[in-house]
């Protein structure tokens, strides 16, 4: 009875692990899609199998001993030889595991240093700013700022500098390497203190935390075009679960096209259209206090360049928004968000401005036009 139950349990355990290899999950650490993730995977797999082997041997021994030496029914109680120990065994089972572990340690150390090295060659440098609860991507050389989707070309190493920023807790600026300012060199809008986040896109790289006051770095690279899912891994408050992002890898040509589009100023709506009304709502409401739109100017002729919230210049060119939790193409989601952000994302720093349905419709039209 005990044997059968344990066998069933053992098979079940194997099934659990086997399922890990045949999933369609899109944030799968076991499906590396680039050299950095592959290095980690190539280290994990053999160590995993060593662990499985040890598991089989030790648990097998345990089961064997339990069954072999159990008192059978009807057998009288006896006192077995009172063995106190065996020094040779002790030395053996201290040294053997130590040797196995030493073997594991060597590639571990080399991989640590490999992954920490700054990539060489034609590196794409991007500053990643982690806000509560969305991701901002600043490409200093290319002169663009986007949100929630990190677009990269395949085959090229990407070197990320990670900074945490916040909004609303204090109004002191965070001294940070990767604090983007407006294109004209004016000082950035005051963006207060932040909390720790963690940037994780498992199919392309391991994690790196994003710590206020520190500028951590992370290298990643995609081998194939595709959309790779990621999310914040370090508990960061109310909407920690809603802080996703995507890394979109294009072919080099596709990336060039994307970049050109991003570098262009925002599309201007047709005068008199609903979109134009939306732009007015945008300019005259509180939106410009947090959101930048390149090429747009407010009533005083100042560029709309704040970065308390995501840069909206090419909002509609992205598939997702609000920490990649909602779809830009989904009108209802967009309207619901504009109506009451905190209802969708607890604690959202974007206030509910009490917009009328008409204003929301107009804004939606305007945002949808920002391709």
């Amino acid at each position: 009875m005990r044997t059968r139950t344990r066998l069933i349990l053992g098979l079940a355990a194997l099934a659990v692990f086997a399922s890990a290899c045949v999933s369609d999950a899109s944030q799968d650490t076991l499906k590396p899609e680039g050299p950095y993730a592959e290095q980690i995977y190539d280290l994990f797999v053999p160590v995993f199998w060593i662990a499985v082997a040890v598991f089989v041997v030790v648990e097998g021994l345990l089961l064997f001993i339990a069954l072999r030496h159990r008192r059978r029914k009807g057998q009288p109680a006896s006192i077995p030889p009172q063995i106190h120990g065996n020094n040779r065994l002790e030395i053996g089972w201290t040294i053997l595991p130590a040797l196995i572990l030493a073997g594991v340690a060597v590639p571990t150390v080399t991989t640590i240093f490999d992954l920490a090295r700054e990539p060489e060659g034609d590196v794409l440098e991007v500053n990643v700013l982690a806000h509560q609860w969305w991701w901002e991507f600043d490409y200093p050389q290319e002169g663009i700022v986007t949100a929630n989707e990190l677009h990269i070309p395949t085959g090229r190493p990407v070197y990320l500098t990670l900074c945490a920023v916040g909004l609303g807790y204090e109004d002191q600026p965070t001294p940070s390497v990767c604090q983007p300012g407006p294109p004209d060199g004016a000082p950035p809008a005051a963006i207060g203190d932040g909390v720790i986040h963690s940037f994780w896109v498992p199919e392309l790289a391991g994690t790196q935390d994003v710590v206020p006051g520190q500028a951590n770095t992370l290298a990643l690279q995609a081998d194939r075009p595709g959309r790779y899912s990621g999310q914040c891994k370090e508990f960061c408050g109310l909407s920690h679960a809603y802080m996703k992002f995507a890394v979109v890898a294009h072919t080099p040509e596709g990336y060039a096209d994307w970049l050109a589009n991003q570098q262009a100023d925002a599309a201007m709506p047709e005068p008199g259209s609903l979109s134009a009304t939306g732009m007015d709502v945008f300019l005259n409401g509180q939106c410009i206090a947090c959101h930048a739109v390149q090429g747009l100017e407010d009533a005083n002729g100042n560029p709309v360049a704040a970065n308390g919230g995501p840069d909206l210049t090419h909002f509609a060119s992205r598939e997702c928004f609000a920490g990649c939790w909602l779809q830009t193409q989904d009108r209802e989601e967009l309207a619901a968000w504009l109506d009451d952000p905190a209802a969708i994302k607890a604690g959202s720093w974007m206030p509910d401005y009490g917009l009328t349905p008409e204003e929301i419709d107009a804004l939606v039209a305007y945002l949808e036009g920002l391709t």
Partner: protein
Amino acid sequence: MASVSVPADGRTGGLLRRPTATTGLWSWVTTVDHKKIGVLYGVTAFLFFIVGGTEALLIRLQLAQPEQGLLSPSVYNEIFTMHGITMVFLVVMPLSAAFINYLVPLMIGARDVAFPRLNAFSYWAFLFAGIFIYSSWFLGGAPNGGWFGYAPNAVLDPTRGMTFYAIGLLIAGVASTVSAINIAVTILNMRAPGMTLFRMPVFVWMSLVVQFLLAFSLPIITVALFQLLFDKRFGTHFFDSVAGGDPVLWQHLFWLFGHPEVYILILPAMGIVSEILPTFARKPLFGYQFVVFSGIAIGFIGFGVWVHHMYAVGLGPIANTAFGISTIIIAVPTGVKIFNWLGTMWKGDLTFPTPMLFAVGFVAMFVIGGLSGVTHSVVPSDYQQTDTYYIVAHFHYVLFGGAIFGLFAGLYYWWPKVFGRMLNDTLGKVSFWLMLIGFNLTFGPMHVLGLQGMPRRIQTYPEELGLAFWNLVSTVGAFLIALSVLVFLVNVAITRRKPRVAQADPWDARTLEWLTSSPPPEHNFDEIPTVHALDEAWHRKYVETEPGRVVPVPAGGSGTEAPHAGEHSIHMPSPSYFPLVASVGILLLGYGIIFGWLLAAAGAVVLLAGVYGWALEPSAE
């Protein structure tokens, strides 16, 4: 201020007379008897276990399917935080303390601990810490920043929750620190004649190591908690990066405590298993000295691995390498223990009553948890694993499959000694198998979930990640665990109604506590035993005819020295109010830090009154 000299029959009014009750409810409130205190710890910890388990069930219900709204993010964050705090500080630690308190004096042949009133104080302070932390639900919000309370999130959170966290854990820390000193002095100083350190049971050794771990790690988190408290309450800048502070300082201080803490959580259970396996194999623990030394080694090395909780923080490859290596190293003494337990069972006359099932279950589950731990020590792998459900799987395998299983083994094993009744073995076996299956169903799939991309501490997850199936399985498993605990409680209830007829030594065991009656008299032993060997109690029953072979001692002869002629009276420490009074003072002080200086001052006065009253009253009258 207390007056200078205290006549034995108290001062004005009956209120201040020294309590004398040894039975009844009031005796529990004023007790300084380590056995009663052990039972108090055990019952309280188990109640918190049910609460923490309910929190776990709520978490599992919320996560059973993607994008559910059973628990809002705000409530979810409180629930998972409280689950962690409860299980670590209000369940496993005090449940271990229950065993340590009850058993250590008996196992070393003492009548009580070194400082009985301090012992009572530790219990009351722990209870009040738990009440304090839980009262936060009604007083402005429960802690919601995780049991690990990372800054700056914990500092910046606008509710009172993390302030309750800081103060509550400070109170619990005081309780544990003084308890550590108490038990350490007891073990070092109060052993029976002939009980050298290497004739102590392994459980006592592990308890000793734990006390040192507590004494040296708690001060560090004490500092961290004060820093958090001051940042929140007074606007200091310990974790404020804008002012030049560093949020990572919190992590260093927290994990400098936090890592030894996990050894604090597991070593007592390892000690329990080291006592149970030899009993049901009917042969000594294999490699006693190696098991002891590996425990000491784990204690030492445990202070040198803390950064393995921080590999992704960005400390650099050199730091990550150093701590990766130290973490790999600590696997070795852990393995030594496991092999010695296997060696204990090898060629034994094995029977499997419930305590033995749980002890073997401990070994089996701990191996899994230990192996996943080894995979974490491979630092680059950990860059993927950290902060995912793979880690959640690991620590539940070692803390539940390990510590909790070990503690349950201890409950079944020592229940007859403490309560004079045996728990029903059939129900025990049912509970064990339900728990084993439920536990593996709950936490096994989490390895997969983590590798497939499910982070920790998330209130929900999107449909498209494909995580729904194993989350559902995990939830089902959690309810099986709940069922198994229910079966245990039923077992306890029906056992209470049985007559108290347990013998002194129902399991034919090896350690001193089995020499005295079940339950023991208040003074533990009529005659303090003189110890001639490790496993003294066994050697009084069985005599070695040739190396390794033993036969029972003929009835009527015990092979020990003749009993002492003549009586001398045994003076036991007297009950006292003051530990409770002092604890109340600390509780009021804690509330006062949040709610007002007048309350804090009142608390300080009560605390001082308690301490002075305590210092001025004799320990025994």
